[in-house]
């Protein structure tokens, strides 16, 4: 039993290490059997789709990955490549349930998913002018983002998502500049459990201790942030 437990842990780790390695690019090492991710191949899929039926990503997310400002089409430019890759895998497996992205991700090969991750991960975040948001909402959002809501055990968002929500590669997504409607919808989804591919259920736990106003404020705050690239 002991051996079985560690063997399972080892197998999981080996898989995890391989993922991290390929997602972090050629510098990650040479042991992987998978081809190195190719951002240029990824760009071609973004613009043209694939012969297996994936629509061009640009249709909804834009060629530059900046989305279209609705809660269904997030910005994915400048997200950590590994995060994109994991989301595509989760869409494909159903771990992240989404009627639009599920079939698209399923039609992509693993190589295509990692090429797309490499492409979007390599894009500079497009520093469009931040939206003008309600100053009161932004102030409240800033407090939640930086210090959390201690009386309800909600930790500050930036503790994991990085200063100003810049994201922390490989696994923690960038929130800065993300459309507030999308962030808000994700918080709702975590709260209702319809999105449940978070690490250690931490977002599901946190969102249950946030109210509507907290979510709106934090989402608005992050939409207006323009930090540099994630470290």
């Amino acid at each position, binding site marked *: *039993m*002991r*051996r079985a*437990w*560690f063997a399972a*842990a*080892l197998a*999981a*780790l080996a898989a995890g*290490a391989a993922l*991290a*390695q390929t997602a972090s690019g050629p510098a*990650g*090492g*040479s*042991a992987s059997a998978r081809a190195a991710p190719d951002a240029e191949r990824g760009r071609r899929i973004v613009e043209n789709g694939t012969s297996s039926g994936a629509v061009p990503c640009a249709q909804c997310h834009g060629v530059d990955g900046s989305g279209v400002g609705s809660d269904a089409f997030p910005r994915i430019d400048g997200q950590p490549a590994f995060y994109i890759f994991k989301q595509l895998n989760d869409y494909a497996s159903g771990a992240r349930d989404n009627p639009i992205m599920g079939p698209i991700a399923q039609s992509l090969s693993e190589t295509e998913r990692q090429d797309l991750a490499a492409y979007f991960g390599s894009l500079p975040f497009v520093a469009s002018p931040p939206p003008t948001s309600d100053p009161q909402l932004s102030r409240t959002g800033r407090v939640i983002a*930086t*210090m*959390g809501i*201690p009386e309800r*055990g909600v*930790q*500050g968002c*930036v*503790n*994991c998502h*990085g*200063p100003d929500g810049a994201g922390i590669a490989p696994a923690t997504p960038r929130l800065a500049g993300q459309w507030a409607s999308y962030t808000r919808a994700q918080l709702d989804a975590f709260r209702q459990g319809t999105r449940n591919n978070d*690490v*250690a*259920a*931490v977002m599901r*736990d*946190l969102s249950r201790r946030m109210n509507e106003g907290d979510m709106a404020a934090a989402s608005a705050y992050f939409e207006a942030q323009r930090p540099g690239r994630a470290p």
Partner: protein
Amino acid sequence: MARTMPAVDVVFVGVGFTAAIIARELKDASVRMVGLERGRARDTVPDFQSPAMHDELGYAVRHGLMQDVARETVTVRNRPDEVALPMRQLGSFLPGTDLGGAGVHWNGQTFRFQESDFVLRSHHEQRYGRGAVPEELSIRDWGITYADLEPHYDRFEYLLGVCGYAGNVQGNIRPGGNVFEAPRSRDYPNPPTRPAYLGAIFAKAAMDLGYSPFQVPSANLTRGYTNPEGVRLEPCMVCGYCERFGCEHFAKSSPQTTLWPVLRQQQNFELRTGAHVLKVNLTADRRRATGVTYIDVATGEEVEQPAELVVLSAFAFHNARLMLLSGIGTPYDPRTGQGNVGRNYCYQTMSSVSLFFDEDVNLNQFMGAGALGTVIDDYAGDNFDHTGLGFVGGAYIAAYTTGARPIEFHPVPPGTPRWGATWKQAVARHYNHTGGLQCHGQSNATRTNYVDLDPTYRDAYGQPLLRITFDFPQNDLRMSHYVTERAVEIARRMGARQIVANPRTAPWSVVPYQTTHNTGGAIMGTDPRETAVNRFGQSWDTPNVFVTGSTLFPQNATYNPTDTVGALAYWTAAAIRDRYLRSAGPLVPT
């Protein structure tokens, strides 16, 4: 002329884990309590928030959360015939300060001691014969047993939300956990951590060699958890900033994350910060404490706090110092062997093995946590037959992945230049491909390792510094070399390209960091002439003074001390609540 505050029933000197535990245990007692903390108040918000908390220079290198040695330090020497000098920079150990004490910046490695650790001398004499304990060692039995302490270990571990897989539940040995551990009454409250890559390689190699690896019991939480006090902790994000840092995620168990949210609302407890206690005030016959005198560090004013009961709950050896400064008990003199305060100062016998792997082994140790480790207990304590080995004690061998932070973690093989382009290339080559095994060893007491008051050097308030006289006993060096050799064997099996053993050598130096596991000085036991306190932590000489912390340990075991410190605090709290408050006086007749 000191200002005098209104009298209270209980005064705590230092507010960390142990004071907070005892104060919570007395919440329903009709006592008024005040906790005196020399530092300031602090909490997860706003004091431990990211990104400021991830300032490695400020906290890890410049010791932002530690005791300020410009105000108060210790003097150190290896032997009684040397002149001790003040420790002017923190190095070998890192005492905390401010609310929560070292419970804020610890790693969270939460091991219990073994049954034999509490009866160390009699255990060895029974198993190996009367002459088995080397002459140089003054190891002792504690006066309590593991069975006495088990319910209190349980309380503390459920308070913290310790994550682990039990290897021995009520005598049922369970592979996958620590099969050597003493029986626990029930499972850990939370599931174990998952091995990091280094730990997984270690586990495989250890199993190949016939050992029994398990995950280190962790107070970095693996899931959200509400403890029996009703305080909520959150899951660890494996950010790699535990030891020397506060946790911004409410994920490392500390006084702040386990007790303070309820203690701060407790009607019969007052926290008073910026209160640096100078001494315990005694009656003329020294048989009774009348309270304490402290400096209000904001004004420099001397303040007297009368109290019926004094609990010395400061960091380890500070408690022994306060006893010596106050005239509680008799100072130990190594020349005569007389005296009961200052004896059996012990530490931890650490060694390590560095493993330099090929470039295709990516360890990614920047994703780490203070207690994220895989360990074997096969060479801990007396878990292995010591016949013919020439030493007592042992060490656990662990593969920890605690963070690989950018300033302090840059392993390079021996022979690499210390600076310049070649050094930089070597750091880049080895950063993600170098791991370590730690041998975390027992520290046995000797007659010449002790603490007393320094005859020369004084602190910012004019009081003599504590003087530490310590060196590693020959016994412990032999033990450490033996276990380090076993670790090298495991390292070979792990497939490292180059293996470098870093065995423990004497003399003890105050400069490189080793551990903050300082023990002894006000030890517990059954003999009032040779121990400072009885089995409940109560002073033999001044029975309305109780002492907490690792200063009570007659010697240090293989393991990290915090679990035992917490368990002893619950044990002492029960004795105060259920016995002392009903009938004040010595709980053990002399």
